[in-house]
């Protein structure tokens, strides 16, 4: 123990570690009425780190070559000790990452935390959300199964409905007329290098903004749920009579991560193929389209939207408009009220939107 203490003293003298800990952990005060939804971000950080670690482990045996990719993934699943576990964790983890991200966004929506002065937090978060969709889409191709191949064909094809440049854009995305070895090469680079690095940088920015602006106060259990921000100058939103991050809220974060892990491991061990239709186990064959190719659950609503509009371009445009609206939400919804029950229009729109999204997803699944 004294050795540990002396090492800590050594660091403290040089870096002022105690002062830092006092300020950032014990002295970092959070609103008294903070709730469990504020721990979604910590879960996401955990998942992201976990995906990076399992991803690096998979890189050891994965071969990004259209001739060998499927074989290398099969080898990981069947021959490498615990290869199945690492891969299943990566696959299930990617789905959970999207799911928890949705929870995070929905909670921010309902608590009105995206409002001034936190527009940039929302915007960076929204970009991260899009990148997570992108990393999922590119990762989907890498096993080079029938599912990978045809899901990517369909997904890249939808870009082709953009007028004038659409067809060229599709070819640019694929690196050729059709999905093929060239597509695998670029998706691989995007999946293992470009997108993860960008996500990491944006997560850094997102956390910096959180730290700099201060944690928002949840609107629940308060008399005054108005947003009292003044736009004359920068003010850090502190919570002088709040609870410390450490140990109080750190414990909540750990609890949330543990609960998440329970769900995650339950899927990994009891229903590992939940996210695997049977085409995921057949090597890609560019000459044979399997019946009923469907995207991942979180793309089903997009897929169904494309189908129900008379022109594909219209379907794509509607989605573009919806996404732009969501990205710019804090600039559009400028009301001061933050409590969801006192924002009837917002409530109607968001609940309606979520139900519509789920409805389209179910429709897409059964159509």
């Amino acid at each position: 123990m004294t050795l540990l203490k002396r090492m800590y003293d050594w660091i403290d003298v040089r870096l002022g570690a105690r002062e830092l800990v006092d300020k950032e952990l014990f002295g970092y005060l959070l609103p008294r009425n903070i709730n469990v939804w504020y721990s979604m971000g910590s879960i996401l950080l955990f998942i992201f780190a976990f995906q990076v670690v399992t991803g690096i482990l998979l890189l050891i045996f994965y071969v990004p070559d259209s001739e060998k990719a499927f074989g290398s993934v099969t080898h990981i699943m069947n021959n490498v000790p615990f290869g199945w576990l690492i891969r299943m964790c990566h696959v299930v983890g990617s789905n959970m990452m999207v799911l928890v991200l949705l929870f995070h966004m929905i909670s921010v929506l309902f608590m009105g935390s995206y409002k001034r002065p936190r527009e940039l937090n929302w915007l960076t978060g929204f970009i991260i959300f899009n990148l997570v969709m992108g990393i999922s889409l590119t990762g989907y191709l890498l096993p080079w199964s029938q599912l990978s191949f045809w899901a990517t064909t369909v997904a890249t094809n939808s870009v082709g409905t953009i007028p004038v440049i659409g067809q060229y854009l599709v070819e640019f995305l694929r690196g050729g007329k059709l999905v093929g070895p060239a597509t695998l090469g670029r998706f691989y680079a995007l999946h293992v290098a470009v997108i993860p690095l960008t996500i990491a940088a944006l997560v850094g920015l997102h956390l910096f903004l959180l730290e700099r602006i201060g944690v928002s106060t949840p609107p629940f259990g308060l008399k005054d749920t108005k947003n009292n921000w003044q736009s004359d100058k920068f003010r850090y939103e502190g919570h002088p009579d709040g609870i410390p991050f450490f140990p109080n809220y750190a414990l909540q974060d750990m609890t949330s991560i543990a609960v998440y892990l329970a769900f995650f491991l339950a899927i990994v061990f009891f229903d590992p193929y939940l996210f695997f239709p049977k085409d995921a186990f057949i090597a890609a064959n560019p000459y044979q389209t399997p019946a009923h190719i469907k995207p991942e659950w979180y793309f089903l609503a997009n897929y169904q939207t494309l189908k129900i509009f008379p022109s594909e371009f219209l379907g794509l445009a509607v989605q573009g408009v919806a996404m732009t609206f969501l990205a710019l939400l804090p600039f559009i919804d400028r009301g001061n009220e933050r409590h969801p029950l006192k924002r009837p229009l917002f409530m109607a729109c968001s609940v309606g939107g979520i139900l519509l999204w789920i409805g389209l997803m179910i429709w897409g699944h059964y159509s």
Partner: protein
Amino acid sequence: MENSSRRKFLGLCLGGVAAAATGAVIYPVYQYLAPQAGSSSEKKVVIPEKDVPEGEAKFFEFAGASAVLIRTRQGGLIALSAVCTHLGCIVQWEKNKQEFLCPCHGGLYTAEGTVISGPPPKPLAKLPFTVENGNITIG
């Protein structure tokens, strides 16, 4: 007093759970990364005699490492490890001189694997082999 012993007990439980969880993560990851048995098995290697004409050398893989089979000008067969005993480079067969040269630091060996000059401290390891019906079996 009662409180502090309860605290200690709970702390121990927590530590135990944490240790078990760490083990449950490290064990599969270690197994995943550990070299796989069978990839460098001690399998016997069979080479047809006609593949090694007089004065020539044939390189092959044996027990996960490089090995070489040579037929001297006199017709004798020799099987050696091709791994230089200095720092592990692979020796080359100099057909004209009937010697092994290690390109890394210029170690020189005879066809039998004895050191002629250079840094190698030991002769090349000899491998056991048998010849039967025109087939050479190493191992």
